[in-house]
């Protein structure tokens, strides 16, 4: 097949990957906004794929409008991670509103998976709101958290409760980097629990938008006691996997 486009329509971003001859020919990520369909159409402008496969929460919306096929994010991430790292057996994907732990077979097929509960506790949206509560931009948040080895324990994972907890810590003059570190450790703990439920096997791949966060990656490596592989552009792994599912 000449050209296949994969679209991952997530809660926070939409990623598009065009695959030609089994290689990534083009990729782009943009915000989902309140008009995901419009964003998709703009992304697709000027492209004429033979096949368009959608994944992510908006996959059924895409299917109803322009996509030829749909696959779940779980399958898409398994294939996408396998493309970059054929030795991958365990995946942690932290996206805008979902965390998924996926166990993968040698060929990139899904063997087992676990997802977080309904709410966005411990996901990208959680980190975004906590960064805001500390007056930080998202990329500053992870960097600041890495500046201190000591952390302030955050016990709430509910976004609303954690925000109150952070407000209380700020009022007690606890250094911002310690609060930031505590929040990252809390997300890491939660992710570890999901990973343990599917079983942790080497190699572990960390993908999804949150994989760009250097602190979380370092904490995961420390907790797992092994290296964690991160794809070159972790946000497009789902879109890539969707495209690959058609080949």
């Amino acid at each position, binding site marked *: 097949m000449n050209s296949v486009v994969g679209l991952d329509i997530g809660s926070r971003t939409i990623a598009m990957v065009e695959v030609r001859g089994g290689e990534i020919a083009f990729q782009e990520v943009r915000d989902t906004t309140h008009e995901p369909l419009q964003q998709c159409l703009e992304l697709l402008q000027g492209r004429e794929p033979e096949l368009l496969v959608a994944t992510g929460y908006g996959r059924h919306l895409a299917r109803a409008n322009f996509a030829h096929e749909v696959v*779940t994010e779980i399958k898409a991430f398994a294939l996408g991670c396998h493309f970059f790292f054929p030795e991958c057996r365990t995946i942690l994907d932290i996206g805008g509103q979902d965390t998924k732990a996926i166990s993968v077979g040698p060929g990139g097929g899904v063997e087992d*998976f676990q997802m977080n509960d309904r709410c966005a506790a411990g996901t990208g949206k959680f980190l975004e709101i906590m960064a805001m509560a500390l007056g930080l931009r998202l990329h500053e948040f992870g960097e600041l958290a890495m500046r201190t080895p000591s952390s302030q324990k955050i016990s709430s994972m509910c976004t609303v409760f954690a925000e109150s907890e952070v407000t209380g810590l700020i009022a007690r003059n606890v250094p911002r980097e310690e609060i930031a570190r505590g929040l990252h450790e809390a997300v890491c703990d939660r992710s570890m629990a999901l990973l343990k439920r599917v079983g942790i096997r080497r190699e572990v791949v960390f993908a999804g938008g949150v994989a760009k966060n250097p602190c979380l990656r370092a904490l995961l490596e420390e907790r797992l006691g092994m290296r964690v592989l991160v794809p070159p552009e972790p946000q497009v792994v789902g879109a890539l996997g969707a495209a690959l599912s058609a080949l």
Partner: protein
Amino acid sequence: MEARDITDKCLDIWRDPYGFARGLKERGERPLAYFCSYAPEEIMHAAGFTPVRLMGATRNIASADAHLQAYCCAVARTDLDMALEGELDWLEGAVFVQTCDTMMRLSDIWRLNTSFPFHGDISLPVRMGEPVSLDYMREELASFRRSLEAYRGAPIAREDLERSIETYNRNRRLAGEVYRLRRERPEVLGGLEGTACVVAGLWMRKEEHNSLLEELLEGLDASDASDAAGGAGGDPLTPLFAAGSVCTTPDLFELARELRADIVDDDFCCGHRYIEGQVEPEGDDPLERIAERLSGRINCPAKHSAAEERTAYLAERVRACGAAGLVLFLQDFCEPWLFEVPFLKERLRDEGIPVLVLESDLQSFSRGQLRTRLQAFLETIRGV
């Protein structure tokens, strides 16, 4: 009615059961609520009441949270909320069979905070299914019978009780036929429609439900056309087995259909567990015979049973219906089921049966997340 009209009607009832049940009182019936499939409906029916099942609703809670903690299941909380909000004023009372901790405490809270004319309690032995507990079970049923007799001011005649047993046995037989059809001819009667036809009977008098099921089965027998009652038609669907407590709404079955799968058999307590087994039609003591049926069924996880028993039971039923996987569909905070899940999941996987655990909360029901999980499970078992 055509078979298709019957399945449509039953689906409508499943989607709005209490709206339908409210009409029973307007028609002169005396609806009496129960919550659990261990309720001895034959006795309630023989006393002149129409037993109706309360199994929660998708709604926001306005009043119940003042009485039940957030870690109680949404079935108990939404049932209580409907009662406290006056939405169940068509009921004459409620019967509590004491199974799980939440249900036991709900009985007291209900009694103290509502003003329905009748309130019944039945204690179940912890070790259901063992001969040693049969006498106790029979005595509980006798005590319940006496409380109903005192309330209505007249004894329940033996012939009325025998007639009710016969009506309920007939109901279970007909529902069993619906289940058989759904397993063996899914192109004629799909899992969604078949289950709807059985579940709808939870909110109508069994005589009426029996006529409906007979009409349905005759209609389906007469027709060999595919899609006769909203069956699958077209490409074969991936057969699934589902187990758990209750399906308050048809969502799980509808999602399966959307994703080209079909729940061909189940172990829900509003489904197969409800229709399992028969009361011996003849014998000296009708209460003992009712007790024997309730004890002889596979236990609800709220009751003690040997660890391997449910694994073996489910594995056998999954294989018998040819399902490609098992979906455990559970209510959030349903401790008895959730307590068994890790062991069940591991053991069933050892048996080569793919298992998916789905948790549902009626208050924050997220169809999108359920769809992703179910679709990913189907991708895995289809190997595509």
